[in-house]
């Protein structure tokens, strides 16, 4: 199962495989792991030539998807998440893998962006924000694992 938004380009690395010149770390799926994961990802992105704005966008998108894993993939048990990132063709890819409950992106309702203060529901913006901050956001359920990919096209700023 693959769900993606604005998906284009190619991604020739099999899920869960190491990226060329990439990095991979595994941490407990708890909020306290977030700074470690963000720092690791930002260092890797900088090594691959991403500019500060793209790194800032990825840092925020990573929080949104990682918080989702902490809350929904492992609602009652402890678990881990593995972050891998690096270049694949002309894309910079950040991949998060967990072994928790399946996640169905199609079940996430679109936020009511136009609602007034009183009517606006509190929450439900994480997946939406992550989608907006990257060029493509992919989800796949594979062999008992959730794989989420945040993808930036042309990471070194080459024209399309």
């Amino acid at each position, binding site marked *: 199962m693959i769900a993606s938004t604005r998906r284009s380009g190619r991604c020739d690395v099999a899920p869960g495989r190491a990226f060329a010149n990439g990095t991979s770390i595994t941490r407990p799926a708890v*909020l*306290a792991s*977030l*700074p470690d994961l963000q720092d690791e990802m930002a260092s890797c992105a900088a090594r691959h030539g991403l500019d500060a704005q793209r790194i*800032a966008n990825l*840092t*925020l998108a990573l*929080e*949104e998807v990682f*918080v989702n894993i902490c809350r929904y993939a492992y609602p009652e048990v402890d678990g881990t998440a593995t972050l891998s990132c690096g270049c694949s063709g002309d894309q910079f890819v950040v991949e998060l893998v967990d072994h928790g409950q399946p996640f169905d992106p199609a079940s996430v309702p679109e*936020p009511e*962006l*136009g*609602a*007034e*203060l*009183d009517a*606006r529901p*509190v*929450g439900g*913006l*994480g997946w*939406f*924000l992550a989608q*907006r901050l990257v060029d493509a956001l992919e989800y796949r359920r594979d062999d008992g694992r959730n794989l989420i990919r945040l993808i930036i096209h042309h990471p070194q700023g080459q024209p399309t």
Partner: protein
Amino acid sequence: MNIQFRDSAGVTVVAVAGKLDALTAADYETTMKALLADGKTRCVVDFSELTYISSAGLRVLLAAAKSTKAAGGETRFAGVTGNVLAVIEMTGFNSILSLHDSVDAALGAM
């Protein structure tokens, strides 16, 4: 994240610096609830030193603004710029929150 207060003619100016994320959102929520419990329902939240906000931050921002409004008060936001403004615009929060360029402008509008 660091939060500081000052009073300006009956309005509480809440200066929030650093990151408002999944790790710090509870601190913001606790702070704003304490202000409300203390009867301080007219607030200007100064975000000029805020560098990062995520959906966890937006959630507590919205919850606190609703609570203050329900108590007959109001919350205005000042100095929202850069990536924080981008996220607020992306999520449509700019149309439901009162945003001002500066704390003085927000105070003037109370």
